[in-house]
């Protein structure tokens, strides 16, 4: 094709300007086609994500309570001052952070152990992998209800193990149960992501380390983990973002009682239950910002690459 085009160029030397115009016209058409092909996806993205985000930012700048619709007024950043100066917000923020850090760390350790087991299993590989994934396949709300029944005094099999206690009525034990439910549910997902990372570690590398004198633990920490690092970071990023938005388990297990609300729970209470669109939107925007900061830290500071991008698993 290039041969023919250069031949044409030689022939039409005096017409080069016209040809240039024609070429650039062709290029423009190509660019237009490119835009057109992207447009449907871009429009959908804008409609379902950009618009709600921008709208909630707009709402967060107003005093807007559906119980007093007449008092709607643009108030600038005063909603943010209200929320950030409020102890409920900071309690919920602390609870959310605690849940995020504890669950992600425990999930990483358990998930890694599970991934190693699944990776090394020789017999019944399919069954082991499928059964390990069952908790992740159960709807969170359903699982949360079964945890709640299990911990209900009198009828629950877990509550009966600890006589005369109602763990979901105390703050510390409630949080522990919420975290337990979270960990139980998402460890398989973590394991799945980590197993994909384990597949990236060449067998020869581990053999070489064994020959070089590394113990099993040294092979794991000095060879396997560094090679798996991209996969581990992706798994951590996904789980951290997920964990920070924890909602269903808390909603079902404690409904936020005894200061067990997460920020999502608090935003829901203000926005949907309290009908305070201004304050609720402000909280949503703050959650959005926190999630964005977490993602930024992971991507820029730890060098996490998006799964499937060229950086990940290249070697």
């Amino acid at each position: 094709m290039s041969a023919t085009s250069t031949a044409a160029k030689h022939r039409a030397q005096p017409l080069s300007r016209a040809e240039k115009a024609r070429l650039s016209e062709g290029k423009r058409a190509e660019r237009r086609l490119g835009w057109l092909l992207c447009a449907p996806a871009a429009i959908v993205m804008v409609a379902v994500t950009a618009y709600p985000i921008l709208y909630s930012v707009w709402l967060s700048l107003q005093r807007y309570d559906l119980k007093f619709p007449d008092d709607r007024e643009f108030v600038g950043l005063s909603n943010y001052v209200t929320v950030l100066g409020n102890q409920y917000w900071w309690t919920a923020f602390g609870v959310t952070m605690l849940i995020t850090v504890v669950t992600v760390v425990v999930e990483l350790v358990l998930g890694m152990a599970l991934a190693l087991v699944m990776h090394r299993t020789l017999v019944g590989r399919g069954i082991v992998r499928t059964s390990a994934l069952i908790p992740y396949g159960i709807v969170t709300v359903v699982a949360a209800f079964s945890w709640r029944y299990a911990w209900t005094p009198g009828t629950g099999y877990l509550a009966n193990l600890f006589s005369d206690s109602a763990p979901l009525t105390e703050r510390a034990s409630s949080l522990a149960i919420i975290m337990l439910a979270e960990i139980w549910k998402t460890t398989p997902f973590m394991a799945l992501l980590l197993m994909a990372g384990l597949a990236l570690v060449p067998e020869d590398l581990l053999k070489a380390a064994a020959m070089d004198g590394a113990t099993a633990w040294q092979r794991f920490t000095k060879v396997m983990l560094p090679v798996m690092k991209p996969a581990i970071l992706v798994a951590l990023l996904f789980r951290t973002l997920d964990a920070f938005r924890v909602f269903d388990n808390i909603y079902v297990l404690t409904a936020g009682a005894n200061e067990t609300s997460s920020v999502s729970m608090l935003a829901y209470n203000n926005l949907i239950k309290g009908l305070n669109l201004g304050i609720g939107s402000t909280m949503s925007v703050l959650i959005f910002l926190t999630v964005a900061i977490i993602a930024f830290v992971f991507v820029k500071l730890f060098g996490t690459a998006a799964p499937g991008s060229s950086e990940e698993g290249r070697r």
Partner: protein
Amino acid sequence: MADIVLDKVGKQYPDGTVAVRDVDLEIADGEFVILVGPSGCGKSTLLNMIAGLEDISSGELRIGGERMNEKAPRDRDIAMVFQSYALYPNMTVRENMAFPLRLAKLDKATIDEKVAEAAKVLELTELLERKPANLSGGQRQRVAMGRAIVRSPKAFLMDEPLSNLDAKLRVQMRTVVSRLQKRLGTTTVYVTHDQTEAMTLGDRVVVLRAGVVQQVGDPQTLYDHPANLFVAGFIGSPAMNFLSARALDGALRTALGDVPIGDRLRGMLERGEAPQEMILGVRPEHFEDAALVDEAARAKGREFEAPVELVESMGSDKYVYLTVEGERASSAELEELAADAGAADLPAGGANLVTRLSAESRVREGGPYKVWFNLEKIHLFDPSDGRNITLHEGRAAGIS
């Protein structure tokens, strides 16, 4: 430094497959031994068993006189170079080479000194701070070697270390490996499927087939006195020519004409020690342009005429492909060799002869041409078990 002794070492997998059968081998201290054979012959399994990466099912492995069967790889004090190099991607060249020393808990000054020394030997000094991803294939290969030599182990194990290099670099690295081994004088076991590498590198070569040792010897012995059809066909490039031969009325009927039988072979035939149907093997360089053979030499061989199919001039000599009448020799060994060479489905009927003639030969493609071959250098094999009938006390005695 130490010797390595394999005493009836075998490997059987749980599903019953036997990968290695009763290998007896004594590798002397400082010796360079090559394990060679087609893919799936068990050579890598044998190496992994010496390394400790695979369990030994039967027999005993001794390194430096000490039983090693139950010892973990890290306790055997041997280093291994892998085909994939197996460099740690997250570490620099320096860290890669220092890794075994760091695990051995040497102090930093000693580590630095040893790494610098190994880097100098392998010309890696400039590359010490680079990551493996930024190295060429040859450089990575040298780093892998460096990681093996820094700890001065009792022995080196090399699993096809040059297979991933391009042809030219492979020849270069071959001399590097050879020189390094001579210089360090460390016992080395080297696995390859390339018979050229086996011939050029090793003090001794072990030819394996289906987990069984076929022959052990120095390269020249394997070449001149192959114990069986498999070794004869595997060692040498281009490979030995094989033709069917039949003993009849005191002569051997072959596609190259009748060949007289000597007393020893006649005796064997009479005693039933040799079958009537045999396989004749002649190496390409034991043919010569009949016009270039002087009178004295002519008596030692025979002449025959055959159509010339193709002439390849290599400068130093000419490869001439001849078509001869008659059946192609067939046996299990030959089929396996052909499959390994990827030539299993060549057209049947007639036999192709590869000959290596002097460069002065005026041979032309197309017409028939007179070619002489040396009777003293031919081999006869038993098609049923592949053994070399012409072998007398370990030496090929021709058909005298």
